């Protein structure tokens, strides 16, 4: 799996789920309404400037706080194709993979805002402006979920978790 797109960089640590999608908007099954408010307390312009296929880049512990799956859903619905961060909060990380949003942990990245960014998942590499950084390897079970396009597809196909 390879993805290339424009990087929207917020080099901030601990971007919590309230900043990804405030709790007041989460009580809905209407995914497009989530996209409208994505990251609005961090950058009110994000939802209008992000283009389909763009990548979001952040600091460490991205997605800390609540278990709301609406956070990765809102990012995906807004057109974000992947999130690269120095590290992730664990529930957010699982939720993102489960709904088929690519998330990559690149602890040393120095990606610049607006740059073109490429992800090479098989080889665990993140590349931008001629520089390359290593990405943390994901466990096989997560790769299986991601390759199936999310946990719904995996369980629909296999009916259970394979060891």
């Amino acid at each position, binding site marked *: 799996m390879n993805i290339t797109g424009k990087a929207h960089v917020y080099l901030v640590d601990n971007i919590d789920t309230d*900043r990804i999608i*405030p709790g007041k908007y989460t009580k809905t099954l209407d995914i497009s309404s989530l996209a409208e408010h994505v990251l609005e307390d961090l950058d009110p312009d994000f939802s209008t400037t992000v283009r389909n296929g763009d990548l979001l880049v952040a600091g460490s512990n991205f997605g*800390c706080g609540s278990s709301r*799956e609406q956070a990765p859903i809102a990012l995906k619905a807004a057109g974000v194709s992947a999130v690269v961060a120095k590290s992730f909060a664990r529930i957010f990380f699982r939720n993102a993979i489960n709904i088929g949003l690519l998330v990559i942990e690149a602890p040393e990245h120095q990606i610049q805002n607006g740059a073109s960014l490429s992800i090479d998942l098989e080889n665990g590499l993140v590349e931008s402006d001629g520089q390359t950084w290593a990405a943390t390897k994901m466990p096989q079970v997560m790769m299986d979920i991601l390759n199936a396009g999310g946990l719904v597809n995996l369980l629909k196909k296999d009916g259970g978790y394979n060891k």
Partner: protein
Amino acid sequence: MSQTISERIISKHANQAVSAGDIAIVDVDAVMATDATAPFAIKAFKEMGGEKVWNKEKVFLVIDHASPAPNERVANLHKLMRNFAKEQGIKLYDVGAGICHQLMVENAHVRPGDLFLGADSHTPTYGSLGSFAVGVGSTDLAGVLLTGKTWLKVPKSILINIEGEIPAGVSAKDIILFLVEKMGAEGAVYEAIELSGSAVESMTLASRMVLSNMVAEMGAKAGLVNTKGLKLDYPFEHQLVDPNANYREIFTYDISNIRPQIAQPHAPDNVLPIDKIIGKKVDAAFIGSCTNSRLEDLHIAAEILRGRKVAVRLLIAPASKAIFDTALQDGTIQTLTEAGATFITSGCGPCVGTHLGVPGDDEVVISSTNRNFQGRMGNPRAGVFLASPAVVAAAAVAGEIIDPEKL
């Protein structure tokens, strides 16, 4: 073989010995979802081709996050949950029953040694009674509804020994805020925390729940409290810390001289002792949430508010109807309402900003809850200070942050 509590519980549920770093497929004892997470879980369960949940006795739904429904959109999500519960024959706690985490413990839906998954990030609260309880999102939960299993990475564990006699005016909330400051918001990401020591052994279950609850604010996956000294009204197998287990790190803190602690906006790890924030004006106060709204919290607030009047609006949402009823019978509610407190439905609303008690621009709220991220209470231009119920009650009377002992 020495194992951490997490390794012991996960090994039992994986039917093989596992240790930190292993990926395990585990049998889940029970699950819980709320109106914030159940609708997406139900949707995902159906998309997976799910017809009947794996075990209807082991699934619990709670309407607490926006309860009672503030608008038609939420009302319809609640209706979807009620319909699903009825169709599946599963237990649903409806409007007013209480906060999910209180209800799971109060009704013994989770017990020592259990492996429990909750679609809420404060699920680690049940580590207070020695269960391996972790928060997950809606789709993970749907996977359990379908299969009764999930996959887990066995976490490394950090042992924190809390030693010493708890000083007067200091509660479990002050101790956990103190620890969140020490560990930081990323201090235990992907890891489990075990809490032990002489200060913990003397704690009630309600106080232990405060500790486990806020390990989430260190990024921890689970927060297991050594069950030594724990009293429950049913027989149980103790889940004891083994100091010879392979801990990533062991910390020991003497809390015998700590002061009440307060987290300042906008991060739960932005903590100072109260003495550094005395005199900060507040516009509103809230006693509620899965952290601090149990009977002992209401009792402490009533002790401070007895015979006094609040200077700013004080909202109180007891953790459950059972707690409200007990506090009604023992006169606590009367004391609090006479002091000017307003009671609202047991639930999460104000803490999570879904409805009720939203602060205005530039307003300052002092709250007994667990998170003060920007916008958390529904307004990104307001500031939330986190403190113990005693400090919140005293601030409500004084209109500013004050040492409750000096009120």
